[in-house]
C-alpha cells in the first residue's frame, strides 16, 4: 500500500470488510491509526455528510474514553481517510474503569451535543478507548455493525426495510456498552442495562456512571484509620462521606519534629489526619484522625494543592499500601508543582497589573457624582447629591453629551453597577440631579452611592486583557500545556515531539509554494520548523527580512498538510493582519491555491479606516451580503429555467406574490380593484372564495409552480433575515441554533482579526479554537495583549523582533507613575517589567536553553535597504548577524536600491550636521521638545530633493519620503512648517484630481512596519553643554527609524553634540550609546557633512 496524503502505512491493524481497513500509519514521525474507506457511489453522500457534521467537529477533541480523531482526508480518487491518534498502551486500565470512562465520554457527547448512536462492541474497544466515533450511520449503511451487541429493538430497526420502527437512541448505546462488558458487571447494572424494553433501561448515563463508580470504589486500595476513642456514630457518617468523595491536602507540620499531616474535606465535613507520629519516619500502616478536630465543612478556594483521594478509608481493614511512602512522595511532587505554579501566578499577576491600572485610571477619571438619597417619581428619579458636590461644569458637559450614567455601589459581597439613564436636569442650589426616563427599578439601587459615566467602551480592551490573564492562570485555554511554557519559559519543558532530519528538510523543499524561499535558508527553515516544532515557535524578523512572506508560506503549508486546520492570523494592528490577507487574496486570484478566510473587524464607523480596501469584501457582513445576493440570483435562474412560461408572466406572478397570504376574499378584492391591469381583473373578478382564486392561479400556473413559488418566498424571507443586526434566521448545528456568522465561520480555514477584536463580545457564543494562532508584531504587544489570541490556539507561532519597538507601556504618565510606585516598593523597574513583550521574554529564555533553541529562528537576510545601510543596521543592532542578499542570488540588488542622485560621495547614508548652523540647540522643553534649526534645515533638504528629483513622478513607482522625528513636539513643528504640497515632484494627482502626497512626517512609532524610499531622520536633541540624550538611548527606536529606508537615509542633527557632549542616562536600561557609535562611525567614513555643498 502506498502512502496516502503523507500517511505511510506500517501495518494492517484490522480488516473491517468491504475494503475498509484500519492501518497503523506514520506521518512526520508520529504514529496514527488511519481508517481507509474506498470510494463507493452507494455511500458517497452519506459518508461526506458524516465526515462534515459528525467527524470534523470532533477533530482534536479530548473526550474521556474515546479515541481522538486527528484528521479527515479525501484522496484524489474519492477514497476517504479518517485519522485517529495512536492510543498509547494503557493496559493497566481495568475493564470497569474503561467502561466507566467510555460512559463518561458518551454522556458528555449526549449532554453537550445531543449526540447518540455509536458503534459499540468489544471489537472496537481497544486499549481503554472506544473507536470509530461518529460512524454509526455509515456502519449501518455498509452493514458492519456487530449485531451480537445490539439492542433487540435496534436489530428490528435494521431489519425493517421501511425504517418505520423507532430509531436507535442513546439507551441502545448504553445497552451495547453494558453488553460489551457483560461478564464484569453486577446484576443491578445488567438488569437495567440489558432490559429488552427500552422503558425499563437506564434513561440517563449518570445513573449508570453512579453505579459504576460504586463498583470501581470496591476495587480501590485501602487505608486503615485509627481514632483515639471508640468512634461515635457521627464519625461513622464522616467516614462514609470520606469514602464517597474526599479531597486531600498534604502538609508538613513543623513542631519539635516534622510530621506529615493531611487535611481532608468531604461534602459536609473537614478535618485532619496524621500519617506518622512525628518522632521518626517509620512506615506504619494506618493514619490517625483526631475526631474532635472534625468540623462542618466551610467552603474554600480550590487550589492545586488539593487532590482527590484514590483510595478508601476503613476502621477495620488493614492498609493495602504504605501510607508514609505514598504521602511523602505525593507531598514532594505537589510541592514542586506548587512552586512552579507560584512563579506562574506571580508572573500572570504582574501581567495583569498594567491593564488593571489602565482600567482603574479610566474609571477613576470618569464622571463620578456622589449621592445620598434617591426618590422615584413616575418615570423619573431625583438624586440628592452630597453636600460637597461641586463639579457642576462637568455635569453640564455630560448632560450635553447625553452620557449614560450608572449607579455604582459596593456592598460586602460585590460591586454593583446598574444602568440608570441620562441626566435630565440639575440644580446646584439644592444639590439635586434629575434622571429622566429612569432605566432601573427603585429597589435595584442603593440609597447611597455614586453615579458614574459609562466607560465600558474605553475600558473594554483592558477588561479583555484581564480576562485573558485570568483564563490563562486557570488554564482555561485551548492548549493548557502552553501556559507553563509562556509563564515560566526558563523552567518549563516543551514536549519533545519529533526531531526533523535532513531528509525531511530536503523533502519539504520540494513542497514549497513560494520558490523564492529556496534562496533564503532562514526563511525556508523558519517555515519548515514553525509547522513542525509544536506547540510554540518564535520567528525573529529584523527589518525587511520577509516576515509576511514567511507567514503566508506557513499558512499555505498548514492548509496543504491539514486541510481541516483552523488558523487565526492576528496582530496588534489591523494593517499587519491585512498585509497577510492581501497576499492570500493575490494567491487566490492567481488561482495558485484557494483559501477560505474571513476578516473580523469592529462594525463601528471606524472600520472604514481599519480594514484595507482590498480586504473589505472579506469581512463577514460583505461576505454574507454577497452570498445572499448570489443565492437569490441562482434560485431565480433555476426557477426561470424550470418554469420559463410562468416566470415570463411577470405581472401575474407579481400579483400572486402580493396576494398569496391573503385569507379574506374582501381584502383580496380590494387589492384586485387597485390593479391597473385589466387582464388580471378579468381573471379573478368572478371568483367568490379564496379557494376558487387559488384554483384559478393553479389553472394558469400549475400546482407545482405555485408550491415552489411559495417555498421560494419563504426562502427569500429567511435569507433577508440573516444579517448581523437582525439575527432572526438561524441554522441548526448539533444541539444548538447558530446565527449565520457562526455558521459561515465553520466553513472558514483562516480568520484574520486583531488580538483585541477577536475577543469581542459579538463572538462570545463562538468558542474559538484554532489549530494555529499566527501572531505578527508580537514584540510590540504586551503579555496581556498577547494572551488574548494565544489562549485560543493549540499551536502558536509568534513573529516579531525584540530589537525594534517594544510594547507601549502606557500613554498616560499618571498610570506609569502609579505602576512605578507600586513596583518600586518591590524593587522592580516599570520599563523593565512592562516594556518587555512576551515574545522577548520567550526568545531570551529559549536562546539560552539548548533544548528550546530549535523553537526559534532569526530571519537573517534583509531585502529592503541598500547594502551599506543593511550592514550598518546589522553591525549596531544585530551583532552582525543580519546579512545582505548574496550577489549570486540577487545580482542586481544594489542596482535596484540606488537613490539615483549624483552625490559627491557614493553613499546611501548622509549625515547632515547642524553643528555649524546658527543656534543648532533644541528648545530644552522636556514636555515639548522642538528644534527650529533642524526644521529649517529639513525644509531646505526637501527643496533640494524636490529639485534633484525633477522626474520623480515620471517613474513607474515614484519615490516616497518619510520624515521621522524622535519627539512628538518636533513632529508638530515640522508639520506646522512643512507644506508637503509645495514639493510638487512628490505630489501625485490622479484623474479625479485627488492628491496623493508622497512625503509623510511622523514619529518612529507610527512608522514601524512601513518603508519609504528616502528617510530623513531628525535627531532633534542638541545642547550647548554636556547633557543627557534622553530616550534616544533606546537603540530600538534608532533601529526602526533607520531601517525604514529603501534607498537613501539622511540624518539631520548636531553631530558635534552627539559625538562629544551627549551622554547616556546614568543607571538607565541601556549601557551602550548606539546612536553616538553610529555617528562616530559615519564621521570616520566621511559621511558627516556640514553643508549641502560638501555632498550635493
Amino acid at each position, binding site marked *: 500500500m502506498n502512502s496516502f496524503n503523507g500517511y505511510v502505512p506500517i501495518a494492517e491493524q484490522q480488516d473491517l470488510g468491504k475494503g475498509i481497513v484500519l492501518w497503523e500509519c506514520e506521518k512526520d514521525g508520529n504514529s496514527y491509526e488511519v481508517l481507509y474507506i474506498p470510494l463507493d457511489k452507494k455511500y458517497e453522500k452519506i459518508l461526506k*455528510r458524516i465526515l462534515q457534521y459528525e467527524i470534523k467537529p470532533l477533530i482534536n477533541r479530548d473526550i474521556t474514553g474515546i479515541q481522538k480523531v486527528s484528521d479527515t482526508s479525501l484522496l484524489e480518487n474519492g477514497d476517504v481517510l479518517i485519522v485517529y491518534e495512536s492510543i498509547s498502551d494503557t493496559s493497566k486500565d481495568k475493564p470497569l474503569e474503561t467502561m466507566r470512562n467510555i460512559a463518561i465520554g458518551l454522556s458528555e457527547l449526549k449532554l453537550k451535543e445531543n449526540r447518540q448512536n455509536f458503534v459499540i462492541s468489544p471489537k472496537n474497544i481497544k486499549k481503554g478507548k472506544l473507536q470509530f466515533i461518529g460512524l454509526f450511520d455509515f456502519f449501518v449503511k455498509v452493514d458492519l455493525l456487530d449485531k451480537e451487541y445490539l439492542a433487540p429493538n435496534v436489530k428490528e430497526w435494521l431489519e425493517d426495510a421501511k425504517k418505520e420502527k423507532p430509531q436507535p437512541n442513546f439507551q441502545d448505546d448504553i445497552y451495547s456498552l453494558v453488553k460489551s462488558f457483560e461478564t464484569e458487571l453486577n446484576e443491578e447494572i445488567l438488569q437495567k442495562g440489558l432490559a429488552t424494553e427500552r422503558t425499563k433501561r437506564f434513561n440517563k448515563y449518570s445513573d449508570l456512571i453512579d453505579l459504576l463508580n460504586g463498583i470501581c470504589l470496591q476495587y480501590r486500595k485501602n487505608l486503615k484509620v485509627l481514632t483515639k476513642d471508640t468512634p461515635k456514630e457521627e464519625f461513622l457518617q464522616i467516614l462514609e462521606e470520606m469514602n464517597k468523595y474526599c479531597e486531600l491536602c498534604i502538609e508538613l507540620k513543623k513542631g519539635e519534629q516534622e510530621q506529615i499531616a493531611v487535611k481532608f474535606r468531604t461534602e459536609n465535613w473537614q478535618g485532619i489526619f496524621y500519617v506518622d507520629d512525628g518522632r521518626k519516619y517509620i512506615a506504619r500502616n494506618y493514619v490517625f484522625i483526631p475526631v474532635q478536630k472534625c468540623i462542618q465543612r466551610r467552603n474554600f478556594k480550590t487550589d492545586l494543592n488539593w487532590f482527590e483521594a484514590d483510595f478508601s478509608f476503613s476502621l477495620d481493614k488493614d492498609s493495602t499500601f504504605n501510607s508514609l511512602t505514598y504521602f511523602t512522595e505525593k507531598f514532594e511532587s505537589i510541592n514542586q508543582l506548587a512552586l512552579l505554579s507560584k512563579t506562574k501566578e506571580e508572573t500572570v499577576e504582574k501581567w495583569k497589573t498594567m491593564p488593571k491600572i489602565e482600567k482603574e485610571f479610566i474609571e477613576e477619571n470618569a464622571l463620578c457624582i456622589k449621592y445620598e438619597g434617591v426618590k422615584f417619581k413616575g418615570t423619573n428619579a431625583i438624586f440628592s447629591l452630597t453636600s460637597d458636590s461641586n463639579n457642576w461644569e462637568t455635569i453640564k458637559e455630560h448632560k450635553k453629551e447625553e452620557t449614560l450614567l450608572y449607579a455604582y455601589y459596593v456592598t460586602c459581597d460585590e460591586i454593583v453597577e446598574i444602568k440608570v439613564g441620562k441626566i435630565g436636569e440639575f440644580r446646584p442650589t439644592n444639590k439635586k440631579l434629575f434622571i429622566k426616563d429612569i432605566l432601573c427599578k427603585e429597589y435595584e439601587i*442603593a440609597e447611597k452611592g455614586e453615579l458614574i459615566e459609562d466607560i465600558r467602551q474605553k475600558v473594554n480592551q483592558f477588561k479583555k486583557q484581564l480576562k485573558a490573564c485570568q483564563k490563562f492562570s486557570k488554564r482555561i485555554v485551548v492548549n493548557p500545556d502552553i501556559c507553563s511554557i509562556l509563564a515560566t519559559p526558563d523552567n518549563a519543558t516543551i514536549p519533545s515531539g519529533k526531531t526533523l532530519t535532513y531528509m525531511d528538510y530536503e523533502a519539504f523543499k520540494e513542497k514549497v509554494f513560494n520558490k523564492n524561499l529556496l534562496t533564503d535558508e532562514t526563511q525556508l527553515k523558519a517555515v519548515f520548523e514553525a509547522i513542525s516544532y509544536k506547540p510554540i515557535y518564535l520567528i525573529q524578523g529584523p527589518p525587511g527580512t520577509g516576515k509576511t512572506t514567511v507567514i503566508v508560506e506557513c499558512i499555505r503549508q498548514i492548509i496543504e498538510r491539514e486541510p481541516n486546520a483552523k488558523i487565526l492570523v492576528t496582530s496588534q494592528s489591523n494593517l499587519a493582519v491585512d498585509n497577510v490577507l492581501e497576499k492570500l487574496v493575490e494567491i487566490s486570484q492567481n488561482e495558485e491555491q484557494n483559501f477560505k478566510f474571513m476578516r473580523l473587524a469592529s462594525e463601528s464607523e471606524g472600520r472604514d479606516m481599519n480594514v484595507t480596501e482590498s480586504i473589505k469584501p472579506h469581512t463577514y457582513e460583505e461576505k454574507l451580503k454577497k452570498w445572499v445576493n448570489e443565492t437569490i440570483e441562482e434560485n431565480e435562474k433555476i426557477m426561470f429555467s424550470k418554469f420559463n412560461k410562468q416566470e415570463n408572466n411577470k405581472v401575474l406572478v407579481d400579483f400572486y406574490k402580493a396576494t398569496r397570504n391573503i385569507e379574506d376574499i374582501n381584502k383580496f378584492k380590494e387589492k384586485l380593484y387597485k390593479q391597473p391591469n385589466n387582464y388580471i381583473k378579468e381573471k379573478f373578478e368572478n371568483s367568490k372564495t379564496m379557494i376558487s382564486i387559488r384554483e384559478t392561479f393553479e389553472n394558469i400556473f400549475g400546482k407545482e409552480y405555485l408550491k415552489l413559488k411559495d*417555498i421560494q418566498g419563504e426562502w427569500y424571507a429567511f435569507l433577508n433575515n440573516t444579517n448581523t443586526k437582525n439575527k432572526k434566521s438561524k441554522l441548526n448545528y448539533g444541539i444548538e441554533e447558530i446565527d449565520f456568522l457562526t*455558521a*459561515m465561520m465553520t466553513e472558514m480555514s483562516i480568520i484574520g482579526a486583531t488580538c483585541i477584536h477577536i475577543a469581542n463580545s459579538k463572538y462570545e457564543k463562538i468558542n474559538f479554537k484554532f489549530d494555529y494562532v499566527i501572531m505578527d508584531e508580537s514584540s510590540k504587544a504586551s503579555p496581556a495583549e498577547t494572551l488574548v489570541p494565544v489562549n485560543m490556539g493549540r499551536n502558536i507561532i509568534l513573529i516579531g523582533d525584540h530589537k525594534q519597538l517594544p510594547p507601549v507601556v502606557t500613554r498616560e504618565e499618571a498610570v506609569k507613575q502609579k505602576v512605578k510606585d507600586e513596583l518600586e516598593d518591590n524593587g522592580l523597574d516599570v520599563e523593565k517589567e512592562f516594556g518587555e513583550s512576551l515574545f522577548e521574554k520567550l526568545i531570551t529564555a529559549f536562546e539560552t536553553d539548548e533544548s528550546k533553541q530549535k523553537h526559534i529562528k532569526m530571519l537573517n537576510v534583509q531585502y529592503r535597504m541598500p547594502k551599506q545601510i543593511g550592514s550598518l543596521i546589522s553591525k549596531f543592532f544585530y551583532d552582525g548577524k543580519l546579512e545582505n542578499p548574496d550577489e549570486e542570488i540577487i545580482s542586481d540588488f544594489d542596482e535596484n536600491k540606488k537613490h539615483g542622485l549624483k552625490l559627491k560621495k557614493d553613499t546611501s547614508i548622509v549625515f547632515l550636521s547642524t553643528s555649524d548652523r546658527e543656534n543648532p540647540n533644541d528648545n530644552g522643553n522636556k514636555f515639548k521638545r522642538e528644534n527650529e534649526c533642524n526644521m529649517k534645515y529639513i525644509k531646505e533638504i526637501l527643496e533640494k530633493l524636490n529639485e534633484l528629483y525633477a522626474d520623480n513622478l515620471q517613474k513607474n513607482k515614484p519615490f516616497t519620503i518619510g520624515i521621522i522625528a524622535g519627539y512628538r513636539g518636533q513632529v508638530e513643528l515640522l508639520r506646522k512648517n512643512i507644506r508637503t504640497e509645495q514639493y510638487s515632484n512628490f505630489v501625485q494627482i490622479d484623474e479625479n484630481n485627488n492628491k496623493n502626497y508622497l512625503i509623510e512626517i511622523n514619529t518612529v512609532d507610527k512608522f514601524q512596519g512601513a518603508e519609504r524610499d528616502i528617510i530623513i531622520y531628525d535627531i532633534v536633541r542638541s545642547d550647548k553643554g554636556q547633557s543627557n540624550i534622553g530616550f534616544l538611548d533606546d537603540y530600538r527606536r534608532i533601529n526602526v527609524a533607520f531601517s525604514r529606508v529603501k534607498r537613501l537615509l539622511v540624518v539631520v542633527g548636531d553631530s558635534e553634540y552627539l559625538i562629544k557632549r551627549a551622554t547616556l542616562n546614568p543607571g538607565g536600561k541601556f549601557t551602550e550609546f548606539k546612536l553616538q557609535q553610529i555617528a562616530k562611525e559615519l564621521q570616520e567614513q566621511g559621511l558627516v557633512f556640514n553643508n549641502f555643498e560638501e555632498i550635493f
Partner: protein
Amino acid sequence: MNWNIKTDKTFQNEWNEFKDDHSTEGYTLRYVFEIYLPFWQCKQNIVVEKDLEMDRFSKILLELISNDLSSHTNICQFLGIEENNFCTMQLHFLIRNNLIRESGTDGYEITHEGLEFLKDRKKPKTMETEKFDYMVKERYSFLENDMTNDFFDPLMPIDKQLTGAKKADFSGYKILQTHKNKIKEQGKIYVKHNNNGPTYKKIEGKRNDFSDFFNTLNPSKIFYDFADSEFESHKRSICFLGFWYENKEKQEDRKIDIRQFKESVEKFENYELERELSKKVTEYVLKNDIRVGNEQSKTQENIGATEQSEFKFCPECGTKLKTAAKFCTKCGVKQDIEVIYE
C-alpha cells in the same frame, strides 16, 4: 446570643391584631419585628428535553422534500447554494431528529415523524442546555433534622399547606440581595447565612428532588441532567414580620410566628402565617438560646449556653477558638477567610 429588637409603635396595628393569637396556650406577645430570613439563589446549566419547534428553514426543506424535490442536488440547486454549502447542516439536523432519512445514493425522504411535524400534529423531542435560576431554602445549621436545602419557586408560597386558591392568588416573594443589608438597622433581625451553602455536589446528590422541582415548574420541559459542574450561588433574603411570644409562666419558653407583610411579597394582601418558617425560626431561637435586647440569662445554665455559642473552630486545624478571635491560637491562620462559593 442576643437579638436587638426595637419595641416601638411601628407595628402597633399588627400587635393589636395578633397579640392574642397564642393566649389560650399561655403565651403573650412580647415583640413584633422585621426579620430577614436567609435563602440562596443558584444558577446552573442544565440539559432539558423539550418539544422541537418548527423553524423557517426546516419547514422549507421539509416542504421541498415532501414536494418531490428530494435529491440533495435538486434541493441545493433550487435554493441556489453549492452542494457542500454550510446551509446543508440543516439537512443533517433533520436526519438526526429523524424528520427525514437518506434514501438511495443522493436522496432524502420525509419520515412519518417529519410529516407529522410539518402538519403541526406532533413535535419531536429535542435536548437543550439552558441556564436555570432557582432558589434554595437555607439550612439552619444549628438545627438537627433540618429539611436541608429544599428547592423553592419564589412565585409560589413556601407554606405547602395552603389551599390551591391561596396558592393561585400568591403574588410572589420580594427577593432581596443580602449584601444590601449591610447597614444593619437597629431593631431588625438578620439571620445569617450558613457558610456551608449549596454546592454542585449537594445539588447533584438531590438529583431526583431537583428533577421533580424543575419539571413541576416547567411543564413543557423535562429535566434530563446537569450539563456541567459549573455552579453559582448567591445569598438572598426575604423580609418577614416576626411575632415573639413568651410563656407567661416560663419566660424561656418562646414561640415565634413568621408572617408575610408588605415587604415580603409583591402584592400584599394579608399577614399570611408562614407555618414552616415559624417552626424553624422558633426552633432556631430555642436551640441557640436567643434572647432579646439587653435581657441576660440569669441562670448559670443559661450563661453556659451563651458561652457555648461564642466559640468557633479554626477551619484550618479545627482548634476551638473564641468567636472574636482573628487568628488561630494554634496554627496562626487568619480567621476571616474569604468564603468562595463553588
